[in-house]
């Protein structure tokens, strides 16, 4: 007989991935409350907020790497552009948060599309090289264009004001980030399961076959790249309003590589995998490695940790850590079966 289920659980089960995402979001929203009650250190909240921001950025890159097989090394540059635009528009021009957000996402997207137009016509690896160059140009602009960017000393911003009257504090901004992350997760899930997503999936299987079926590879590659850039710019805007400070050296190649590590380690083409990967890549070094007695003192331990993890994941566990639970379950099942067969023999 089927167990009678609570109505809430029924709804939860029928809307499976969405309800999971929303549940995750609700869990995250309780964190600032825990901080206020003194159960969680404030520094953890900052770390978790940056992890969530990097998750948003990584979701875009995951779409690009996972479905179109392209690598972008400009993630950090576009994210940095997002931060500077957000700071300039809200602080110097006093524009409202919503308009600044729109412009700060659109401008990097246009630059991204122009880069894509040049480099996506040819082989896939051209995009990586082109974005590497664009990222360096952007960093140069951050340093040299002092009137707007303030050069090496960096630029400041404040917590956002929603709709012109709702001043968000630290906790409010954290909740805003969570809302954006959940929204982006749902959006990405829908995108993957739409016509566009199916076209991208076909491309991944075989570019030639996709072309033969009438899918315009160039168009979908460009779309995937534009989405990746837009997500990184959005991440940049949120970063600016939470951390409230940006400087050129924050947006180097190492950040782009870390974001790439997020999706490889977490799981390519997996939305929860990306978030898990962000917690591994940005969380473990910050929350655990730095607190260990010996390793914590070494500069660059985090880089080595992430670099080794990328290579090990690609060589031995290419689907990513998100599948580890499923594989462990399978393994346990197999072991139990083997045990049963032994006991039958005996």
């Amino acid at each position: 007989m089927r167990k009678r289920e609570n109505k809430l659980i029924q709804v939860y089960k029928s809307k499976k991935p969405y309800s999971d995402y929303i549940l995750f979001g609700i869990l995250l929203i309780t964190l600032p409350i825990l901080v206020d009650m003194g159960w969680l250190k404030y520094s953890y909240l900052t770390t978790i907020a940056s992890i969530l921001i990097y998750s948003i950025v990584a979701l875009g890159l995951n779409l690009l790497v996972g479905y179109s097989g392209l690598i972008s090394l400009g993630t950090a540059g576009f994210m940095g552009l997002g931060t500077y635009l957000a700071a300039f528009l809200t602080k110097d021009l006093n524009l409202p948060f919503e308009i600044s957000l729109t412009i700060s996402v659109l401008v990097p997207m246009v630059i991204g599309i122009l880069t894509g137009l040049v480099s996506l016509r040819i082989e896939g690896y051209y995009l990586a090289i082109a974005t590497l160059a664009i990222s360096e140009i952007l960093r140069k602009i951050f340093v040299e264009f002092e009137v707007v960017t303030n050069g090496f000393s960096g630029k400041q911003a404040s917590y956002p004001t929603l709709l012109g009257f709702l001043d968000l504090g630290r906790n409010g901004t954290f909740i805003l980030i969570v809302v954006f992350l959940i929204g982006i997760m749902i959006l990405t899930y829908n995108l993957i399961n739409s016509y566009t997503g199916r076209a991208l999936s076909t491309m991944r299987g075989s570019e030639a076959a996709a072309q033969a079926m009438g899918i315009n590879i160039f168009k979908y590659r460009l779309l995937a790249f534009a989405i990746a850039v837009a997500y990184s710019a959005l991440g940049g805007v949120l970063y600016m309003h939470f951390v409230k400070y940006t400087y050129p050296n924050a947006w180097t190649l190492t950040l782009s590589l870390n974001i790439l590590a997020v999706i490889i380690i977490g799981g390519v083409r997996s939305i929860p995998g990306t978030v898990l990967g962000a917690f591994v890549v940005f969380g473990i070094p910050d929350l655990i490695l730095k607190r260990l007695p010996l390793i914590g003192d070494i500069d660059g331990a985090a880089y080595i940790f992430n670099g080794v993890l990328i290579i090990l994941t690609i060589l031995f566990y290419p689907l990513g850590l998100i599948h580890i639970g499923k594989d462990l379950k399978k393994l346990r099942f197999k072991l139990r079966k083997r045990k049963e067969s032994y006991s039958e023999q005996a």
Partner: protein
Amino acid sequence: MSIFIQILLNSLETGGVYALASLGIILIFRTSNTTNYAQGSISMFNAFIATYILMGTGLPAFAVAILAMLSAFLVGVLVDRIVISRAQKVNPVSKQIITLGLIMIFLGLAPMLFGTDPLQFPRFIYGAHTIMGANISYNAILNIIIGIVIMIFLFLMLQKSKWGLAVRATASNDIVARMMGIPTPLITMGSWAIAASLGTLAALMIAPTSSVNLSMMDGVQIIALLACVLGGFQTFYGPVVAAYIIGFASNFISFYISSVWSDSILYVLILITILFKPNGLFGKKIVKKV
């Protein structure tokens, strides 16, 4: 006139540095079918080793350079044996990501072993000479000559020697090459080792002007990659010629237009060139078979 000659001499020197680095990248691309983003980091790492040998033993700079190239050779062999040779069945995108992971490892190892302070590496020889009104240091002349000699030597080896034949066979089709009895794993390992040594030499050439630090090779690495794009990935000589062209353009732009924005202008110019010559200046169109 003297300014033009000055620019020409300078660009021969910087072009040589770019050419050495891009030759390493193209060698690896052709034999193990991946763009090696870690070339710059490996060179940077070995430049640190060189500086430490120099400070520890007080040997002359050129002897240290040879030792550093040997250590780079060893690093290249290790990277290939430990990582790349195991990744043969991995798809091309993941292979590139592996080299990006290598960057992180070397960027983490270098400050751990050598500290974060920038170090100084001396010139090979000191003194300067004036040719037709252009001032050039003996060190620059030496760098130009070393660059050209090594390049000619490698190209002769690629065309005439048995090793070169094996490399070219592996580059054109590695399965058939293996069937013909060519030890392709050994060839790939050799390419990684030689590429690392070439990159290290390039790093030591620019070290006196830029100091030995974590980001010393970033610009060279980007330009070397762009040189491969500009010259086309299908030939060995294309990227080298493109590297010299870029070296000239870089000096020209920084003298006549802007020294601050020269790299940025250069990158944009190269990207625009690719728009019109998608397969590079010397590349052929790749025909894909299904």
